[in-house]
């Protein structure tokens, strides 16, 4: 392999742990994203801008009830996804890491997802799952970007590659149980991922992962978005309906347009 030393290091870390956590590659892009969120929140809740962004985000449970959370989340996610530059900014926070781990011709999910987890709220939980179990290609990674510091049960968990391979082997026997029973069976093996604001997590979505009730006193805000190589196999999430190429290179463009001369 002709990878540089730093590329080898990041690749080995991803393969060994199933994820990497790094400082965002473009801080101005992250600041832009958070600023857009703050504007959307102020607009949705008719607030006067007088609070620090991290305070507003971390204490949003004081303003949004569990019953109103999904409607609020949908309003924010629709707003953010409608901004022309948003996906480009999102890509920029992880670009060099994606280029090392995935490649430099990338497809990106069309809509970035948003997770808001209020303290003590059980309405927005993601039970243990691997994205591949529901049709995602194993050639995808998830770029997970928090808008606040995520720690303890405010964060997400991931089952590392070794126990995940074991679970895969025993899947037929173990997956008959409910998601909760499955989680309880592997809870001692999962790793809780501490990701601070200003960092980005890239993880292997074919490893089982999820979240639990946020027992920390602050609200979690995180986004997630899938990336894959343009020319790697697609699963049930297809090109056009779910993914779109974002960094096609000139030679691929030329190759795709090329036709042998007709005789």
């Amino acid at each position, binding site marked *: 392999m002709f990878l540089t030393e730093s590329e080898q290091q990041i690749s080995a870390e991803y393969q060994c742990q199933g994820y990497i956590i790094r400082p965002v590659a473009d801080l101005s892009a992250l600041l832009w994203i958070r600023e857009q969120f703050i504007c959307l929140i102020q607009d949705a809740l008719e607030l006067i801008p007088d609070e620090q962004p991290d305070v507003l985000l971390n204490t949003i449970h004081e303003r949004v009830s569990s019953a109103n959370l999904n409607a609020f989340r949908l309003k924010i996610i629709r707003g953010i996804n409608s901004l022309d530059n948003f996906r480009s900014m999102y890509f920029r926070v992880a670009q060099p890491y994606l280029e090392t781990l995935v490649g430099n011709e990338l497809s990106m999910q069309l809509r970035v997802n948003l997770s808001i987890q209020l303290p003590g709220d059980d309405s927005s939980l993601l039970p243990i799952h691997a994205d*591949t*179990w*529901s*049709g995602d290609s194993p050639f995808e990674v998830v770029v997970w970007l928090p808008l606040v510091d995520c720690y303890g049960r405010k964060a997400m968990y991931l089952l590392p590659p070794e126990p995940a391979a074991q679970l895969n082997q025993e899947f037929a026997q173990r*997956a*008959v149980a*409910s*998601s909760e029973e499955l989680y309880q069976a592997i809870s001692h093996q999962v790793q809780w991922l501490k990701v601070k604001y200003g960092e980005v997590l890239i993880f292997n979505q074919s490893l089982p992962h999820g979240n639990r009730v946020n027992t920390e006193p602050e609200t979690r805000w995180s986004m997630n978005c899938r990336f894959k190589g343009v020319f790697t196999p697609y*699963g*049930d*999430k*297809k090109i056009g*309906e*779910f993914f779109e190429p974002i960094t096609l290179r000139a030679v691929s463009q030329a190759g795709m347009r090329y036709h042998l001369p007709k005789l």
Partner: protein
Amino acid sequence: MILKVRGYIFSRSFMGERVPQHVQNLVIRDYCNRHNLHYLLSATEYAMKGCHLMLEQVLNELPELDGVVAYSLFQLPEETSARQRLYDKVIQLNKQFHFAVEGLQMNDCQECDRIETLWRVRQTLPFCQTF
């Protein structure tokens, strides 16, 4: 009273058909709106061939629900006995099982027969001559 129903979609093709997951959800959501049902986020069946583990989990959850809305009746298990077990459970618990794209609802033996007839025809069609 608005009935609470769990959506059920596929992440693989079924009977030679493939429908994007977000389209399956749109059809279910529209069906629920038209039938005044409170739609709960869909369970997505695993991608492994022949797998119905998520359906089993939804059926385990059935006592706390009023019913299930699957995208299509052809997402039910292909084995007749497995489908019969599902019908029995739904009827025994006095719940509803809806099929959004076909616009069908099952909560009694008569409806089960109707659905089974559709299944038998669908399974026979590949052996019929086509033009």
